[in-house]
């Protein structure tokens, strides 16, 4: 549900497509933003200057131009190592957490549908834990990050083929209040 709501939101934001650069670490409290408040986001290119911290549209977590709007880390088959290409994104989220002590996130680990459901549950946990560890090493608080595994139970992509499997080998970052 949350994920669907989020993607709908991102599509809405993308459609509005602001060209204004955002500050990565705008001092916005996540919990002040309900999805409803954030949804209308930038309706015009100039509507969201980076300095305008009071308005909902400055939330860096929701800005498609901001790396913080990227929330998925993808993994290789059987693996739970965060690949290099996802490190800048993970680092950005770690920085956001260190700069926003009241921010909290859940990292949800997922796997593809094949093999043991129970092993996949444990593997999804390892993936979520790997993302958390990468962030706590960079200074994010242990208590700011909760991890959960859905194993193969909540597949985003349901075709039985490699493309889908690669999409489902994934950890998603979900902020409290998303």
């Amino acid at each position, binding site marked *: 549900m949350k994920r669907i709501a989020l993607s709908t939101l991102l599509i809405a934001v993308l459609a509005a497509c602001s060209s204004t650069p955002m500050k990565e670490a705008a001092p916005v409290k996540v919990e002040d933003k309900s999805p409803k408040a954030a949804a209308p986001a930038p309706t015009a290119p100039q509507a969201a200057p980076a300095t305008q911290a009071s308005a909902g549209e400055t939330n860096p977590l929701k800005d498609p131009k901001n790396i913080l709007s990227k929330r998925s880390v993808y993994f290789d088959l059987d693996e739970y190592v965060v690949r290099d290409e996802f490190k800048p994104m993970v680092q950005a989220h770690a920085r956001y957490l260190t700069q926003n002590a009241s921010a909290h996130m859940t990292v949800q680990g997922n796997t593809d549908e094949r093999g043991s459901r*129970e092993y996949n*549950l444990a593997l999804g946990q390892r993936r979520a834990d790997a993302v958390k560890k990468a962030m706590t090493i960079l200074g994010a608080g242990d208590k700011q990050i909760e991890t959960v595994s859905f194993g193969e139970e909540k597949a985003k992509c349901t075709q039985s083929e490699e493309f889908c499997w690669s999409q489902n080998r994934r950890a998603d970052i979900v902020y409290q209040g998303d």
Partner: protein
Amino acid sequence: MKAIRLFAFLLVLLGLGQAQAQLNIEIIGGAGKQFPIAIVPFRNENTLPLSVSQVVRDDLARSGVFRMVDTTGVSPLPSEPSEINYPDWRSRAADAIVIGAVRPVANGRLEISFRVMDALKQTQVTALSVTKSTAELRAAAHQIADAIYEALTGAKGVFSTRIVYVVKQGRRYDLQVSDADGFGAQTVLSSNEPLMSPTWSPDGTHVAYVSFENKRPIVVTQNLSTGTRRVVAQFRGNNSAPTWSPDGKSLAVALSRDSISQLYLLSASGGEPVRLTNSGSIDTEPIFSPDGKWIAFVSDRGGSPQIYRIPVTGGDAQRLTFNGSYNVSPDWSADGKNITFIQRESGKFRVAILELDTNQTQVLTDSSLDESPSFAPNGRLIMYATQVGGRGVLAVVSADGRWKYRLTNSVTGDIREPAWGPLPKN
């Protein structure tokens, strides 16, 4: 490996492989040796709402051990030993003949009596009578099939057993219990969040499973007759992979409350878990040995998921699987001699069996997305989940890999995670 112990005086013929669809059972194949048996329609059974002899026939045929000898054209149909025309049955190549009769007894109940006759020696192998109500005719037929199977093979029949499995339809998950042949399915729990890993208590009165009803996996036990549910593990993190000890007093589970998934033991009524493994690697899918002394489980401590065993009292783990990079989901046969599991080979996930004494592994299936193998309580058959046409179905393979059938019952949606229940208590 698992040769059927047939009586020495009976001829063993090469089966022709049965292909006819029987009710909800689709027999995929098999060859191997099958025992030719004639099940004569029982006297007076045409007055019943159900043909008892046909259910017996279906049961025995589904086991893969027997080949049904055609009874058409036999007149009169014998129901007493003195009425059997042995030369005729020998010309039909029957090695055994089952005859029986139904008669009403007190309180509207029915007495079904039957005999198994040796067609060569012309002697009685076994005889029994079963008294049931009209509503219990299927159960009576399964009990008769069990008696015939045991008399002719020496192994317990599993026709009166039940199975539990998960059906996913759209966003709904149903936990269902049915007879081993897929009949009489009953939904014992429905949820809009995933249900996983159902397993039986040794006495067949309870199931344990994993539920995401609180948005993360917890372990629940449920009394099948009262429906009473008890949450036995809902610690921080994942609570999963429940399995009962053979004495029914404790459960082994996988918990991630202290680190990543590790094995713990807890009382079947809940309480504080006792940590069993401390590996720093994934440990999950525990299963007790039938003598209760060992727990087999899956661990990636060697770099890939493999099956290990550890004493229930703790200690060093011993690796059991060595072929390939992915061996998961162990189940232990009731005689303790074999472990069935899923082996990945070239991207295909198949049911395999490991003979512990010899360390021999045999892959039993040729499909590609098999999961959750579960031994029948007599160790002769293994039920598992597989995919046919993109849909999850249940299938069965014999422990020697020669016999296969599928349960294609009328349920729509994905059927998954079968667990074969224990033998009923008599």
